[in-house]
């Protein structure tokens, strides 16, 4: 057996061939049905980022409306459509595809594989993203406009269909979400199979980089949770279109059951989003602190604990929905329990940074910024899990502030950290640090300025999803709106940096950060099929400070030896 594997490890002549289109310098490959995981990864990230900008524009119109107490800038129906689409786009068309993009690009490189397990399935899953994106955005242009029922689509509001048309905003919304679910399941099957079966020789579970662990944990949640949302969405669609009455209370249906289906998935979905970002933190801190990830085995196992716990907390979204007292108390305790594995991670990152030799590159700054906003969100999260307090702030701006600290704070900043960190690997070029630091400063100030005032607003009792509000909330809303516009502006230096650096940035070597990891052993950008020779891993992943080699062979092959 070992003889056989040694034999196959020898350079594969097929791998060195660079078929057209697919050569690294050919930008046109990003517009093809490429099956190269690196191309698909970048396709995912760029597509998702375009949707992120669009969702952000919607948010800025909303902040424009909220700068005054009256509903004056846009009609109430338009405002309601805007926040529905903002939430839907940001979750289903920005975070999921963006994280799938990172996973797609990084996981095969990090585990020493030449591609994903199912390259064609991978490409098909990606090309569904623009399809359902267009379906969702098309709902802006149909009579009656897009769905106005919020991204939760709670019945009976979501079943009201004032247009009376069969093709209405809500139906298109459900179609888009269902397709997104199919795409995510395809992605999840692929990623889980890849991680389970395609790790390089020697890469046991506890030699696998933390990012792969978190991706695995997140995709397992997708596989378990998404079907429940699909079930709820199918029933809602049938109610809306063919006249069944699953969730219609006037005909014996139960609208609260939908909430259970919805949150059984949509709370864990938050962990689907944030777990890979935890992985990014675990990758970035050791590199720029020049220290091994502190407590690596515990950090990675805590990801799995989060996966398991995330499946038993969903009712905390429904403390005010008419849930019995025992359910409120039970889910209060399970929700609080999630802070244990999460706390382990936070402390481990702090200990990783502590006593290191820090280099505050843009990536490190974003990771530190993301960690601090995540810490804040985690603390407000524990507060929210406490049922008596949650009953007061449930459905108020306190919750909006809390989850934007997670998603815009930790996740978007974590995304930026990942992009800056792996930009040299993906493009072969360096980014401009100055622009990057400007980007960080604007983002960090913007995020705190828009989302921090939302907490006192919620405590004072301003409900979320309101197009107008009482005048006493005006001052804090003005600050939040200004922060929102600043956040919008903050993307400009990023886009400028990415576009110009990709074109004319300084050439990056294989490993500009002196980072440890299989992806840094090959050229930048990595060749087609990644490794000339499949690496043989002999060391744990974060050997900073100890001069042990990570692999026993030269995965880049003769060319770069």
């Amino acid at each position, binding site marked *: 057996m070992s003889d056989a594997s040694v034999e196959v490890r020898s350079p594969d002549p097929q791998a060195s061939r660079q078929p057209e289109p697919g050569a690294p310098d050919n930008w046109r490959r990003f517009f093809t049905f490429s099956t190269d995981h690196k191309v698909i990864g970048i396709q995912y990230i760029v597509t998702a980022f375009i949707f992120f900008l669009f969702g952000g524009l919607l948010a800025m119109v909303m902040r424009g409306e909220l700068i005054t107490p009256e509903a004056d800038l846009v009609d109430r*129906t338009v405002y309601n459509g805007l926040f529905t689409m903002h939430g839907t786009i940001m979750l289903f068309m920005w975070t999921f595809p963006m994280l799938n993009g990172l996973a797609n690009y990084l996981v095969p490189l990090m585990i020493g594989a030449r591609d994903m397990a199912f390259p064609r399935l991978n490409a098909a899953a990606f090309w569904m993203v623009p399809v359902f994106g267009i379906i969702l955005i098309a709902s802006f242009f149909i009579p009656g406009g897009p769905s106005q029922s919020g991204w939760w689509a709670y019945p009976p509001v979501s079943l009201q269909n004032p247009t009376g048309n069969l093709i209405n905003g809500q139906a298109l919304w459900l179609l888009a979400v269902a397709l997104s679910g199919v795409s995510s399941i395809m992605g999840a099957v692929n990623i889980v199979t890849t991680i389970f079966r395609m790790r390089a020789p020697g890469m046991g579970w506890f030699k696998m980089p933390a990012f792969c662990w978190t991706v695995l944990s997140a995709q397992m949640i997708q596989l378990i949770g998404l079907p429940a949302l699909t079930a709820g969405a199918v029933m809602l669609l049938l109610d809306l279109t063919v006249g069944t009455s699953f969730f219609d209370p006037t005909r014996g249906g139960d609208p609260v059951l939908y909430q259970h289906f919805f949150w059984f998935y949509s709370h864990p979905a938050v962990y689907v989003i944030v777990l890979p970002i935890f992985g990014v933190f675990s990758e970035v801190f050791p590199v720029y602190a020049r220290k091994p990830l502190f407590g690596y085995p515990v950090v990675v196992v805590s990801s799995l604990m989060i996966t398991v716990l995330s499946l038993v907390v969903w009712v905390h979204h429904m403390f005010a929905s008419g849930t019995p007292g025992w359910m409120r108390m039970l889910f*209060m305790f399970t929700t609080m329990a999630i802070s244990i594995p999460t706390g382990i991670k936070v402390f481990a990152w702090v200990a990783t940074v502590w006593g290191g030799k820090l280099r505050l590159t843009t990536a490190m700054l974003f990771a530190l910024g993301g960690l601090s906003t995540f810490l804040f969100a985690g603390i407000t999260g524990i507060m929210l899990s406490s049922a008596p307090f949650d009953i007061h702030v449930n459905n108020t701006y306190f919750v909006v502030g809390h989850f934007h600290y997670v998603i815009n704070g930790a996740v978007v900043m974590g995304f930026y950290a990942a992009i800056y960190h792996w930009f040299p690997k993906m493009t072969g070029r360096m980014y401009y640090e100055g622009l990057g630091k400007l980007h960080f400063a604007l983002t960090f100030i913007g995020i705190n300025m828009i989302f921090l005032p939302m907490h006192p607003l919620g405590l004072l009792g301003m409900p979320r999803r309101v197009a107008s509000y009482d005048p006493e909330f005006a001052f804090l809303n003005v600050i939040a709106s200004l922060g929102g516009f600043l956040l919008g502006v903050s993307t400009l230096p990023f886009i400028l940096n990415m576009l110009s650096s990709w074109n004319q940035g300084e050439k990056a070597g294989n490993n500009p950060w002196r980072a440890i990891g299989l992806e840094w052993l090959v050229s930048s950008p990595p060749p087609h099929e990644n490794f000339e020779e499949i690496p043989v891993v002999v060391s744990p992943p974060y050997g900073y*400070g100890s001069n042990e080699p990570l692999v026993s062979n030269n995965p880049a092959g003769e060319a770069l030896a």
Partner: protein
Amino acid sequence: MNTENQRTSDLNRVLNRRSILGLTALAAANLAISYWMGQQAYSWMPPQASAESVLVDKLFSFMTAIGTFIFIGVIGTLLYSVVFQRAAKYDSTDGPPIEGNLWLEVVWTAVPIMLIIWIGTVSYSTYDQMSLLSPFAPQEMKTPGTVPGDKKESVPGDPEPTQTFAPIEVHSRQWAWEFRYPEDGVSSTELHLPVNQRARFKLTSEDVLHGFFVPAFRVKQDIVPGREIDFSFTPIREGRYRLRDSEYSGTYFAANQTNVVVESEEEYRQWLLAAAQNPPTAAENVAFESFSRAVEGSISLGWATVRPAPAPIVNYTSSEKDSYE
């Protein structure tokens, strides 16, 4: 094994760099700031107008203090690293290869566990004292007249009810609130409650989910159409407060709010008597009026909307211009 010892000693060096005394002083300062923040937390809340609000604010203050302590502890440590532990410009060496520390890891697993047990216990007892009448709890079956939540005696400002009032019917619809006092033949768009009495409600919705939310009372309950939900709390402070719809209910959701007036029992009785004399009139209703205005003025309606229910016909109407706390 040798490297293991080396690593442990490295760690000790890192840990012992600051004297125990210094650390203790920092922890004490953090504790003081956290306590102060906990006290500040009260001022971030609306007026305490119900017995429940006293309990919730205390819980929030407690959690704010703990949260502040953790936040300052972690961010302070990070900031120290960021400021003082930067690599020199041409220093390309690595930091100490510390891969972990069993003792530390046990501590920071045990500390959160104890903290959440603490927070959980405090939350549980707060909930128990509030004993918000859960819609499906067995209390529902109790005979009318017994006031649920007997454990509330210990709550300050919540004296024994002198007399129990029949439940007030809360009717929510797109987009209006209507309160009916069946025994007194009064219907109103403003909710009037006697102070220091357990107020009881039957919440119903005629169309979609709504949420009964009075920030000054710190209570909230979704109203599910097709169900009659029992709900209760105890107002303890006279004044006029805002009642808001807290579960998104469609186009005019944001305008679906009204006022709650908490007054002395005497004033309450007088109000009921006076209101009962009033002829029923159509109330002021933001949703219906702006919808009608839009239709008449042929202003662009934006996108499709559900037609608002006509303004409720009630004995007593409130105005959006009324002041409130």
